[in-house]
């Protein structure tokens, strides 16, 4: 009799204990986000008390920032130092479980005065999104010359020789025009040839007859207007599309 009672007690204890261990924390409702220009508050509730963890970042595949908080069923996380006018991706949960994911956008205009180093480097190869009032990639300001010209010590010689082809005012202006041709080539699918031997990309604009060569990193080697009408046809390399370019941002 005593053994039977002990057995049933053990079964009840085990079912409660194992049940508590295997109970999955569940989200109650959806996370609430209050985003300001440079900060955000994220609130969410769980059915039982658990740890607080929020991961966030600008890239959904790389939530590289983490904030952790106390054990609770009502969780609140305050994020500061965010960039204005920027979309962030986040996930909420505990150390063990990810309960939900979402995005929020901070208010205000995008701050372009101090772009990050990564953004500036990527900007060499990536056209900045077109503002509505400017029509063509030629209107986009080019990154600094040292980021767009392959060997800066040669720039003066190329400018002296070919700068007048484009009415360039200075070597930097000339380098910027060469960079803008590449952006236009990518946006408007101008003829491009890639020489796989050394990675040189040649771009030609049939309308202006401007031709530029870029190294495998997308930096300009030269920029000029050929005199010969068959020059482009004689250039080596296989025709490529913008999507084929190796130095496109990944």
């Amino acid at each position, binding site marked *: 009799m005593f053994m039977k009672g002990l057995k049933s007690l053990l079964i009840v204890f085990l079912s409660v204990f194992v049940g508590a261990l295997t109970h999955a924390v569940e989200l109650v409702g959806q996370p609430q986000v209050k985003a300001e220009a440079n900060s955000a508050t994220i609130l969410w509730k769980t059915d039982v008390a658990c740890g607080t963890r929020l991961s966030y970042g600008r890239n959904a595949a790389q939530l590289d920032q983490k904030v952790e908080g106390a054990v609770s069923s009502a969780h609140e996380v305050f994020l500061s130092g965010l960039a204005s006018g920027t979309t962030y991706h986040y996930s909420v949960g505990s150390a063990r479980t990810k309960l939900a994911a979402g995005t929020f956008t901070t208010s205000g205009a995008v701050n372009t005065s101090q772009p990050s180093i990564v953004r500036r480097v990527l900007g060499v190869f990536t056209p900045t999104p077109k503002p509505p009032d400017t029509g063509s990639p030629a209107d986009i300001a080019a990154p600094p010359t040292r980021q767009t010209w392959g060997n800066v010590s040669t720039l003066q*010689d*190329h400018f002296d*020789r070919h700068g007048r082809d484009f009415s360039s005012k200075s070597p930097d202006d000339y380098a910027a025009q060469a960079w803008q041709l590449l952006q236009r080539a990518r946006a408007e699918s101008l003829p491009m040839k890639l020489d796989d*031997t050394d990675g040189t990309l040649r771009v030609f604009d049939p309308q202006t007859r401007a031709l530029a*060569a870029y190294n495998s990193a997308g930096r300009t*080697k*030269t920029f000029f207007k050929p005199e010969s009408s068959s*020059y482009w046809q*004689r250039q080596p390399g296989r025709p490529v599309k913008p999507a084929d370019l190796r130095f496109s941002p990944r």
Partner: protein
Amino acid sequence: MKIPLNTCPVCGFDQLDEPPRNRTGGASMEICSCCGFQFGVTDDDQGVSCDDYRERWIAGGMAWSGKGKKAPKGWNPQTQLGALARLATLKRVKGRPPRFSMQLL
């Protein structure tokens, strides 16, 4: 004896940033800092051969062309051209020079 890859075939300057032509013939588009020949432009676009350009460069006094790069210390265009001519001559000589053998003596 091989001509170093980064040597200008016009003036013999051996410090080009890259070979004037890659192995499939694509021009480097580089302007030689020494003589000012632009590979792929002076020749392929303007139709000036290396030999013609060299003659003009020599006739013009063999001045250093580059503004971005200074001439190497002790740079001497005559010595440079002489070395290029020597290398070009050696390249043209086919086969090995004859060797003395005790059996022939």
